[in-house]
């Protein structure tokens, strides 16, 4: 009996012991779970705190997002060149830029011949160094309705003399309705596509046919013009202008007494007596984008004005231009342009008793065609072919009217937006030089200081 009681006691003790262990395990599990819950709760609280912080930060940054009428407090200045003269106020002055072109080179043609081969007043025309031009360009708003533009050009000519020219000084309206714009002052006649500014060319010299028809400095004189953008799905602009016909920048027209434009016909003094003694121009330019990366331009220009060989003689110049540009819409600087212009001049020359020549109409024509390939943002290469010729009249043709071929190749490097280095080779064949070919090499440096200009298209 004693043993039975002892066994029962031991058994009950063991069972009780197991229950306690079981309970202990359960207690431990519950504690672990509680700790886990506590940890998660703490994380949630911390995240909520961060979230609240960030939401507060965002609300501070954005302000009341439903109050869309609030006005920004700060007004940045106009993008024109300006001086800060106080908190949030800037003084708008003139956009100024200074552009220099310096070249150095040589030619197998001697220096007298070079003056004829390089007909542009800003072309390199001597062996050695040439400061082709130093241009000061400015533009500014006159008032909300009109803007002003001016360009002074300084150069050192082939005689070593410093020349200062007021190249352009004009105003342009900007508030006329119906796509109209009026311009008046001294300006380049907007004939053809080629810009008259040498720093925008892909070559160091101007096309032969431009030198022949418009002189070394281009056709520019005081006058007025009206342009109109037609409301069409493509860009279509018509320009009409009237300008003075006399002076050294109107070579195909009245020009200057004592000069000769065509052979054997001296220019005489001719007064401005009526409206027909001005130069009139009509041009029509059409530009299309058949695809996102291709632009095509077709244009026609027409000029009529008096010439100085007689009292009632007229010059007419026609121009046809074609331009195509392929340019992917990225930032790699790759592009190809093809630009061609044909020009034809009918020069009505009066009889000249001094040279024993009868009246006659002398026709000159010529063209240039050029391709520019942009390789990347820093390099482009270009090629150009030109041809020009004039009718043979009663007198022999001079250097600016006889047959002329020129082939040019250039490579240009742009270390930055404001500096360029160009190497150019010209192969010339001109009737006045006989059968020989002339070779010229020019190295040109271009630099720009001041306002960053826009890229020409």
């Amino acid at each position, binding site marked *: 009996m004693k043993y039975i009681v002892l066994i029962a006691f031991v058994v009950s003790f063991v069972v009780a012991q197991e229950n306690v262990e079981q309970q202990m395990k359960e207690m431990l599990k519950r504690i672990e779970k509680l700790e886990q819950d506590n940890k998660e709760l703490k994380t949630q609280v911390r995240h909520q705190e961060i979230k609240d912080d960030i939401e507060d930060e965002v609300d501070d940054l*954005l302000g009341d*997002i439903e109050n*869309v009428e609030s*006005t920004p407090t700060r007004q940045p*200045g106009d993008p024109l060149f300006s001086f800060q003269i106080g908190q949030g106020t800037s003084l708008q002055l003139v956009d100024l830029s200074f552009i220099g072109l310096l070249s150095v080179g040589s030619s197998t043609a001697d220096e007298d011949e070079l003056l004829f081969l390089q007909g542009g007043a800003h072309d390199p025309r001597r062996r050695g160094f040439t400061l082709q031009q130093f241009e000061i360009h400015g533009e500014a708003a006159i008032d909300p309705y009109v*803007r002003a533009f001016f360009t002074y050009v300084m150069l050192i000519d082939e005689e070593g003399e410093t020349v200062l020219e007021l190249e352009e000084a004009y105003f342009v309206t900007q508030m006329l309705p119906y796509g109209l714009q009026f311009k008046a002052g001294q300006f380049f006649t907007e004939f053809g596509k080629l810009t008259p500014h040498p720093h925008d060319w892909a070559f160091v010299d101007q096309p032969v046919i431009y030198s022949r028809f418009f002189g070394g400095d281009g056709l520019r004189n005081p006058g007025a013009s009206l342009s109109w953008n037609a409301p069409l799905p493509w*860009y279509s602009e018509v320009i009409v202008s009237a300008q003075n016909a006399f002076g050294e920048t109107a070579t195909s027209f009245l020009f200057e007494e004592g000069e000769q434009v065509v052979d054997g016909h001296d220019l005489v003094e001719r007064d401005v007596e009526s409206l027909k003694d001005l130069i009139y121009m009509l041009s029509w330019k059409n530009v299309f984008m058949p695809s996102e990366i291709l632009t095509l331009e077709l244009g026609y220009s027409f000029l009529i004005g008096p010439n100085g060989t007689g009292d009632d003689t007229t010059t007419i110049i026609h121009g046809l231009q074609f331009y195509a540009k392929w340019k992917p819409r990225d930032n790699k600087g790759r592009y190809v342009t093809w630009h061609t212009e044909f020009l034809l001049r009918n020069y009505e020359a009066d009889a000249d008793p001094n040279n024993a020549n009868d009246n006659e109409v002398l026709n000159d024509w010529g063209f240039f065609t050029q391709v520019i390939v942009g390789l990347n943002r820093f390099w482009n290469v270009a090629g150009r072919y030109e041809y020009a010729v004039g009718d043979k009249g009663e007198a022999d043709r001079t250097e600016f009217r006889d047959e002329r071929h020129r082939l040019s190749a250039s490579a240009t490097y742009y270390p930055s937006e*404001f500096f360029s280095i160009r190497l150019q080779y010209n192969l010339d064949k001109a009737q006045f030089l006989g059968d020989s070919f002339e070779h010229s090499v020019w190295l040109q440096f271009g630099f720009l200081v001041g*306002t960053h200009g826009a890229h020409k298209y």
Partner: protein
Amino acid sequence: MFKYIILLLVCSSFLCGQVSIITSTPNQAFLVKEIGKDKVKVESLLKPREDMHFLDVNPVFMNKLYFADIFVETGLGAEPWVLPLLQGAKNRKILRQNIGNVNAARGIAPLGIPSSISRDLGDVHPQGNPHYLLDPVNSKIVAGNIYKTLIRIAPQHTNFFKQNLISYNKKLRSSLIKWLKKVKPHKGKIKFVSYHELWPYFSRRFGLVQIGTIEPKPGIQPSSRHIQNLIAQMKAQNCRLIIVAKIYPLNQVRYIAEKTGAKIIHASIEVEKKDGYLAMIDELINGIIPGE
């Protein structure tokens, strides 16, 4: 024939009743569409992979501006091509200071205004860095500028534009909360270099530290000596990230990455996809801080 074409153009514009808007950049065009929806017809002059500083003065763009009711420009002197395009367009409504012109930078506090202005410093922007839309907070200001012009040009749709603007602002708020939460633990710890000085607004907002640029100065191409100095600087500062906008070349970037073991983020800075501006910033942040 001529009369019919003009009549057709005028009628189509009126019949559609849409406001015709031209913007400088795709980001601005996206914001215009967010506010204007089907009441506007919008086109950006620049494409996403073009540099905002360089657009050809193409007469075709003048023609687009000729027909525009509103023109949105970046401002801060970033776009030298705008003025000649506006002059050639002969549309007085969108001239600067006129009713249809939006200077998107109005109200933005510009960063990076140089203490002195000289081309010695490269192609600096006298009025400050114009890449302010890389801080999404600034998109609220730009959207507000667009809205204010839209309601003046088309006041009959004021409520519609207002609701769309509020809706955009709400989306911006929730995105901003998500992004700031994500970058918070990394603030001040992520060092990077970029190709061009594009990122001051972005790095200020998201706490990134820029230690240099691959261009030695804005607009100046890097020399090999500069690249070697940059590599040494990145190694010394344990910089393992290069952020390059898709408008810049990758050849020198790859070389630097190879030498430093840095990760390259080739980032869109203008909207390229249909999912838009906020998705573009989202992709950028996920690229910098992946997998969280």
